[in-house]
């Protein structure tokens, strides 16, 4: 009887191991296929004729210079191809938000909504009208995803759909997300949004459909397209920073509120001025939101002191019930 018992246990273990092996082999196979799909096609030089097949199957010939390259097909050919889940080596992206300069112009939000084709009712970037108590001063506080170094949202994700990269970014793979919304409950900054219905992203949907065909669906392409039943959030614009371009909110802000940069380079810039991060935080007494929770955000705030504009001026564009047009 003892013998039987061990035997069956062994069988069970054996099965388990086999199953694991099969899964592993499957996974390796899939990655292989994926990498093949990602491999760059031969570059066709200018002045060449190019044969293109139309959707109805006829072949036409055009001068290749007539063909506009799309951003991403170009990107594929660059050597900076990197693992979306690992991110860029030797980088740690941080943001500094100077509350003294913010007057709720909302250009950041408009740019973000537009660039990310945000369709829900809850913008990724919000400017809060903050006043902790009746006796304390009010101020405007823009919030993005904090891209925490100890992200509570990533900890609770059951399927590794949201992940933390080496370069500090917290991104979402919306092809894997199961829509349990545990990450939303875990985030103390209420930064995550959910696609409650089929997101209608206009003409971009068509473009993205083509993207899907070429297996381009990737967590770092502006989180596009949004997928019904999955979570979205501010992504620190990896599609831009990969090309050394600042995130949209940073460039859109007319008041230079947002500074963005690489912590390892000790440098942040708002597009106008470029400063040493450590000195800026020291001089202006930078802090982070809810430090006590131990999330270690990548977004620093400079306190709203010596403000250039009156708080009240921002009230004009403040809408309590709307953040996406």
């Amino acid at each position: 009887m003892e013998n039987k018992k061990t035997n069956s246990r062994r069988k069970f273990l054996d099965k388990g191991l086999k199953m694991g092996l099969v899964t592993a082999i499957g996974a390796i196979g899939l990655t292989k296929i994926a990498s093949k799909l990602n491999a760059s096609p031969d570059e066709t030089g200018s002045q060449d004729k190019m044969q293109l097949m139309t959707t109805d199957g006829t072949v036409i010939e055009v001068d290749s210079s007539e063909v506009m390259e799309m951003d991403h097909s170009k990107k594929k050919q660059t050597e900076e191809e990197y693992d979306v889940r690992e991110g860029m080596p030797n980088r740690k992206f941080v943001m500094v938000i100077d509350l003294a300069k913010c007057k709720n112009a909302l250009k950041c939000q408009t740019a973000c909504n537009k660039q990310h084709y945000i369709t829900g009712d809850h913008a990724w970037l919000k400017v809060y009208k903050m006043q902790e108590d009746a006796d304390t001063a009010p101020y405007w506080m823009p919030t993005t995803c904090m891209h925490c170094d100890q992200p509570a949202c990533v900890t609770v994700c059951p399927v590794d759909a949201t992940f933390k990269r080496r370069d500090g970014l917290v991104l979402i793979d919306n092809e894997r997300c199961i829509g349990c919304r545990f990450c939303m409950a875990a985030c103390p900054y209420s930064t995550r949004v959910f696609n409650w219905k089929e997101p209608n992203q206009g003409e971009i949907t068509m473009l993205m459909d083509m993207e899907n065909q070429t297996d381009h669906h990737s967590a770092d392409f502006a989180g596009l397209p949004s997928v019904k039943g999955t979570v979205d959030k501010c992504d620190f614009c990896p599609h831009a920073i990969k090309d050394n371009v600042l995130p949209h909110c940073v460039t859109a802000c007319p008041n230079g509120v947002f500074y963005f940069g690489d912590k390892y380079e000790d440098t942040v810039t708002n597009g106008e001025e470029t400063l040493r991060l450590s000195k800026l935080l020291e001089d202006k007494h930078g802090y982070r939101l809810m430090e006590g929770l131990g999330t270690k955000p990548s977004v620093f705030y400079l306190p709203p002191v010596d403000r250039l504009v009156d708080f009240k001026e921002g009230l004009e564009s403040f809408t309590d019930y709307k953040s996406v047009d």
Partner: protein
Amino acid sequence: MRNQLITRHFFLVVLSVFLYTSSFAQDRVRLKAEYVKIMNEGSYFDIQATAKVNDENVNVSKIELIIYNLVGDEQVEIGKTITNMQGKSRFKLKDLNTIKPDSSNTYNIDISFAGNDAFSDASKSIVFKDAAIEAKLVTIDSINYVTATLIDKSTDSLLIGQSLKVQIQRLFKSLPIGEEFNETDEDGTILVPIPEGIPGVDGILAIEVILSESEEFGTVKTIVKAPIGKHVVDESTFDQRTMWSPRNKTPLFLLIFPNILTFGIWGIIIYLILNLIKINKS
């Protein structure tokens, strides 16, 4: 894969044709051009094509520009370039010797656009002399400085009273160091201290000394690689076993204890099921 790419390109062709025909005929193109020389690397022209369409500034993409060198009364074509989606183009000069200056050692370049269905012709001329910056790293009293000398190559003389920018190359925008304007002294030289503790990958800082958009010389830039930076230390927890790691980097205690419990309980469950089988057989 290939087919899909082609389909996509086809779509773009259709889109671009559509864009071309729908825009108003014959808008004026405005060209902006800048001459940039990077020491030991070469020179190039940065060209930007814009047009006012319906009172709105738009970038003119995919137009062909021809670059000419004016020698005496003669226009010598030195190359062609096509603007990109943002209406920008960078035309690289392999060598300054491929173009010829006039008697005063000044180079005259014309960039011209022949015009097409949508846009009328346009041209832009730029004039520049050759200048050079020689920069190096010096250490005085254990403080690191970058020193740079600005030379007018057309006359082989030092340039005095020109202001140079010194900055450290960074991912997005370079970090300026020294004064806002560092004017060259009577030796055509500046001396700028490098602040301590600036980090760089492997401790290497790429310091740029720039003569920026000078009317006479265009932009001249030199890059000094200085191994004086603080080494960048990767603080990321990416390689560690943390609560926020993917599953192949799960903390060990989270693998050990739940698995002991799970397999323990399921072991008992299986034993119980075997008992059912035993009951069935006896």
